[in-house]
């Protein structure tokens, strides 16, 4: 383990700090360029959110965090699971259908539905895993294709077997006994923090334990850092690829579950797309570390939710935060790279100084 030094921590915090400053700068410039007022924008964004929005932020943070962990499992193994989007779409649809059919009652239905979501997510990402291990197909391309296939496939099932209501189609509503609701920290009209946001906590802790306290986690990190070294120490790389890909898909299957059992009650227009890509972005932002990703998820959820206020007070449209988020990700990966090079140079210089000292 690397020991914590002041300089080490400083360098680790430096990159995200620079990235945040850069994204604030770019956002300000873009707003000014189209003739709106950046001052108004930032003062609206940094007002303390109203209770209803605070509840939303917690719920969104949970879902984005689950997505980030799913992405991170792949990243730590050196795999790019760009297919989270498709995995959680098809898994959410399957789980919502299963839960709506009400084969089981009460809490058992919830648990079984979560299992269905994980199994379907794992199976969908497993296709990419099998293609990679048996045919050498890059998981990046196959998961992009699987995303598109998943979305159309779900559309097909929904149109043919869904419940039609006016112009929209959705899966069967959950029976009242099987929704979980949540707890309302403020007044009832401000909404509830969904019960299954607890899944995010479990997933986060589980991820940390898996990585740092288990044989599998060690194998995973080893394979991610050097496949040849991993192979030499007796790790079966193909098995690792398949298992971690499926694990990533299984976690991805859980992404939308808090919303399903909290507010949505069916898979339909209420389904929230784009969480998969946000998860990838947050995993990059938080360097695939459990705590780092928590801050990243909180930041992204804050930006997305708080931007709703913009429609009232300002003439800036809420979609501006998408630019902020995108720039933050690009800036953070660039600055990590710069800091890494800088750190290497510092180490090289330190070593050469010590060697020079020893030679005397």
């Amino acid at each position, binding site marked *: 383990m690397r020991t914590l030094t002041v300089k080490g921590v400083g360098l680790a915090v430096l990159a995200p700090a620079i990235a945040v400053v850069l994204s604030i700068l770019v956002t300000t410039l*873009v707003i000014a360029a*189209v003739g*709106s007022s950046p001052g108004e924008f930032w003062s609206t964004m940094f007002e303390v959110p109203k209770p209803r929005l605070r509840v939303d932020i917690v719920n969104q943070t949970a879902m984005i965090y689950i997505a980030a962990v799913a992405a991170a499992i792949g990243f730590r193994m050196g795999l*790019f699971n*760009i297919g989270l989007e498709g995995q959680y779409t098809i898994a959410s649809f399957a789980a919502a259908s299963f839960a709506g059919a009400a084969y089981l009652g009460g809490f058992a239905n919830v648990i079984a539905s979560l299992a269905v979501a994980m199994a379907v997510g794992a199976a969908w990402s497993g296709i990419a895993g099998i*293609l990679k291990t048996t*045919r*050498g*197909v890059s998981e*990046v*391309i*196959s998961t*992009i*294709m*699987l995303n*598109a*296939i998943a979305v*159309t*496939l779900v*559309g*097909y099932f929904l*149109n*043919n077997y869904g419940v039609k209501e006016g112009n929209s189609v959705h899966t069967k509503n959950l029976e009242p006994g099987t929704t979980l609701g949540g707890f309302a920290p403020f007044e009832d009209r401000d909404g509830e923090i969904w019960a299954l946001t607890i899944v995010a906590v479990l997933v986060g802790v589980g991820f940390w334990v898996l990585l740092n306290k288990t044989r599998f986690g060690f194998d995973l990190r080893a394979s991610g850092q050097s496949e040849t070294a991993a192979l030499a120490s007796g790790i079966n790389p193909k098995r690792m690829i398949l298992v971690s890909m499926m694990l990533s898909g299984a976690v991805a299957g859980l992404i939308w579950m808090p919303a399903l059992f909290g507010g949505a009650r069916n898979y339909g227009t209420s389904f929230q797309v784009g969480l998969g*890509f946000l998860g*990838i*972005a947050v995993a*990059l932002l938080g360097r695939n570390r459990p705590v780092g990703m928590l801050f990243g998820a909180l930041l992204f959820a804050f930006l997305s939710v708080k931007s709703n206020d913009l429609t009232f007070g300002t003439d*800036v*449209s809420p*979609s*501006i*935060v*998408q*630019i902020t*988020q*995108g*720039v933050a*990700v*690009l800036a953070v*990966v*660039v600055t990590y*790279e*710069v800091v890494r090079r800088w750190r290497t140079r510092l180490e090289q210089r330190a070593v050469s100084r010590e060697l020079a000292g020893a030679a005397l």
Partner: protein
Amino acid sequence: MSTVVERLTKSWLYIGLIGIGVVSFVRIVTDTNDLTGAGTIRAAIIATCPILAAALGGLWAERAGVVNIGLEGQMILGTWGAAFFTYHYGPWIGILGAALLGLIGGLLHAIATVTFGVDHIVSGVAINLIGAGAATYLAEAIFPDYEGGGPRQLNGLEAPTQITIPGVSDLANDVADKHWFFVSDIASVIQALTTNISTLSLVIFGLVVLSAIVLWRTSFGLRLRSCGENPQSAETLGVNVYLYKYVAVLISGALAGIGGGFLALVSSSGFSNGQTGGRGYIGLAAMIFGNWRPGGLLAGALTFGYTDSLRLRDTQSVHSLLLLVAIGLLAYAAFRAYRRQVQGAVVVATAGLLVLVWFLSTDSVPREFTVMTPYVTTMFVLALGSQRLRMPAADGKPYRKGSAG
């Protein structure tokens, strides 16, 4: 014999002719003249062009060793650029505007991947986020004030000129209406190419030829490709690798932008939010399908464009396509068997028989299945042919100046 087979498979022209022959056969057997009607071919050309432009963009970047998954984002930027500049200055400046916006996306990608050595996929994903966000925001901020505009669209834009070659067009029309085997199908293609074809389509097809010449017939192209194969060696020979990579990625972004411009100006009469619908990714798939070569990616883009256009037409013609797919798979299985690749032959033949059964036992195909076709095809091609595909050797690998040692 095997040399004959190889010579045949090497020539896209023959494959094209055989393909048209088989399509014609299927058209007559299933009695669906719409399969190669001039209207269908026209729609197919319009659907092909944006995919083709994106695929070409992918080719330029990857030949220089940079994976550009940001094509989608650059394309989205292109749709916005085309709308903005066409509104103010007319369609041709509009297309340049689309290229410029795409180029800006390419510049971001080049800075991140070439100068800073960031993982190419990571940077591409970020650029897709930025591109989608920027186009949405800029549209909401600017277009509502324009005539025909709203927060999510800008309609009534002037399209680039369309060309008709009078004599040829009429003659081809007459022949196509006869519904003869093979001849009428060719006539339909000629009719579609000579009647009201957008000049921008011709420009994009021209860019494929131009790219092929520049990349494979000039010393500039040779140096650019050497950066994708072995940048260290290129460096030792005095090639400025960073410069070539930058040029390639900028051109890549501009081409994707033009593809976006085509969507806004030719495919529809204006900008609408989210109109790329993942075509940047399909372009990337078409390029891989085409084995990182211009002729191949043209074939890929045409295949995807054709299926893409069919979903807009009646489901009966899509259904007759099943027979086409079945014949294609069985022929490929026979080819595999001839090559003594028993396992592959069995797998492909089984798939072919299943499709044949599907064709015989149903009389329409759900629309969603047509939408899926390009994606499923790509997966199949990758799964079956990944050993035969060869991407540039240093594609996607980070490179730093001075690492040649």
